[in-house]
């Protein structure tokens, strides 16, 4: 922002900042007239300049060409009080603050229910009463541009036909769709931050994306199934593989011997395991008949992913044979509960709908479940070769 004194018409050295006389405003030859002009703006009823102000101004009027000769103006010269550098700087700062606050709180100002924009305009008006120089006037003009842009936007948003779109509600519904698990938030009022409390699952956006794909005609990404190159690159890889196989062969010799042992009793081992787990379950249900066991607590072995999968495999036999039922509880978590004996196996098959389900569990998911549910010990102990059965309760 150039110094007000640097007007093009007068090539004068920079004198004290309080000298506001070098205004190249074509419409007036008097400084005073400018401030009068502003007075008009503020107070609608005033017609002519106020007599006291015009006294000093008349002095200048008599010698318009000589105005620039006056390097210093007495402090009281400018009736509207913008005379000294300090107050002018203060005005400039206040303008800048006002502009900054309007920019930062833009969304707030746009809110049709708020009158913040009007308040800002009123404050600028007040500030303007102290302005007499171009530099501050320029800041005022900058504010005016900002305010009128905001005003235009507010007017745009007032589309009389446009049905109001409640975006916060849309956001909430989106979160719900994505599977937000809303836990009770005690302290802070979530409305203040505009953000809901709760746990958003990691596949939230994938779930939403899968739904949105229905609304698009996106060309599926085309990839060659077998790769798009010809045969050359794989050759070095084969060499590496051969080397690995060479070192692995010795170990393989040792393994089959062990495997053979297991295979003989493979069939029995499964049945034994299933029975063992069934016994465990029935004991638990006898003790607490009304409390269903969380499926995860039952089958997850936090120390071994492989055993977890085995447990699920064995439990599935129990369910297939109708000794237990797998359900989802109120939190949509799977629980296992006993099927009552008097329902009878046959009735079960006919009366109740038997459903098949395919469960999948990845290593990553297993780890996450262990973490989330804080499973520290497996409920189903490792298979024992001895006759004694280990029973550990979670």
């Amino acid at each position: 922002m150039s110094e007000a004194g640097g007007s093009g018409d007068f090539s004068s050295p920079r004198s004290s900042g309080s000298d506001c006389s070098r205004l190249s405003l074509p419409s007036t030859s008097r400084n005073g007239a400018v401030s009068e002009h502003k007075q008009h703006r503020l107070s609608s009823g005033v017609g002519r300049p106020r007599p006291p102000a015009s006294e000093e101004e008349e002095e200048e009027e008599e010698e318009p060409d000589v105005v620039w000769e006056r390097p210093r103006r007495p402090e009281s010269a400018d009736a509207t009080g913008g005379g000294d550098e300090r107050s002018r700087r203060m005005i400039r700062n206040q303008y800048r603050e006002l502009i900054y606050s309007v920019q930062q709180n833009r969304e707030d100002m746009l809110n049709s229910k708020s009158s913040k924009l009007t308040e800002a305009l009123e404050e600028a008006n007040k500030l303007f009463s102290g302005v007499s120089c171009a530099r501050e006037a320029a800041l005022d003009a900058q504010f005016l541009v900002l305010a009128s842009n905001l005003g235009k936007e507010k007017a745009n948003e007032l589309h009389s036909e446009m049905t109001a779109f409640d975006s916060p509600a849309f956001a909430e519904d989106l979160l719900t769709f994505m599977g937000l698990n809303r836990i009770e938030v005690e302290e802070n009022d979530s409305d203040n931050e505009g953000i809901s409390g709760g746990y958003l699952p990691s596949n939230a956006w994938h779930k939403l994306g899968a739904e949105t794909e229905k609304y698009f005609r996106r060309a599926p990404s085309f990839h060659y199934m077998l790769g798009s190159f010809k045969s050359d690159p794989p050759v070095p890889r084969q060499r590496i593989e051969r080397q690995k196989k060479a070192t692995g062969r010795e170990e393989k010799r040792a393994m089959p011997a062990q495997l053979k042992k297991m295979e003989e009793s493979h069939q029995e081992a499964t049945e034994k395991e299933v029975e063992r787990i069934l016994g465990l379950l029935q004991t638990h249900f006898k003790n607490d008949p009304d409390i269903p066991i969380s499926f995860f607590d039952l089958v997850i072995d936090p120390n071994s992913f492989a055993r977890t999968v085995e447990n699920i495999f064995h439990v599935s036999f129990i369910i297939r044979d109708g000794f237990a039922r797998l359900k989802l509880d109120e939190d949509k978590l799977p629980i296992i509960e006993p099927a009552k004996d008097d329902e009878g196996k046959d009735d079960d098959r006919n009366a109740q709908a038997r459903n098949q389900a395919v469960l999948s569990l990845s290593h990553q998911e297993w780890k996450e479940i262990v973490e989330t549910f804080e499973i520290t010990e497996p409920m189903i102990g490792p298979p024992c070769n001895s006759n004694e059965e280990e029973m550990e309760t979670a």
Partner: protein
Amino acid sequence: MSQRKRSKGSGFSQGEEGDDDCTPSQMRVLSQGSRNLERHSREQVDQKVSELVQFLLVKDQKKIPIKRSDILKKVIGEYKDVYSEIVNRAGRTLQQVFGLQLVEIDTKHHIYILISTLPRAEGENLRQDDQTAKLGLLSVILSFIFMKGNSAKDGAVWEFLRRLRVHPGERHEVFGDVKKLVMEEFVRQKYLEISPIPLTDPVEFKFQWGPRAAKETSKREMLRFVAKIQGKDPAFWTSQFKEAEGSPGPL
């Protein structure tokens, strides 16, 4: 990508067979084109057509629009004189074999995209990857822009996304650098058009639908999406509904 022996499958339409459904004006063009065609053998032109089809399919993987200059440079080469013939036939192949349409989204700069002409398959076990999640984010932005009157300020968009736990300054666990994704990748793919608003200081941006969004989806579809999420009838938002019904769309 090169094919030594090209099988004449039923998917490829030969130049002569296409004449039957041509209008007189197209006949004139074809006859001029067929003069050029004589300079190259039929096999060579067929070769170029299939090369172009493969080129377009691969180029479309990242969803970045394909420039005609690239097509000319990388595929057409010295067959420039039969360019339109090759492109038309490639388009027909894409349609008949893959159900994809080659669309020019910028007639001045000649930029193309591929879109699907078939409705999206429904099912439970379709692949879900990062592209799926990104489409979710994009749909949220597109529907927000439309419901707000086809244009939204960047401040408003980011404020809305903040409610969904997406922040421009933070690294998102699914999207990473979200600001880059929205302001650069989506723009490059022509899903969004982001332009600075004049006379704003610091500069602010205006978000609008990009040409790809206009082709791959429509206002009606995005309104349907919003309605589904909010459990309301699309006609609930009367002016948006009117606008959506009035606008043409691929769907």
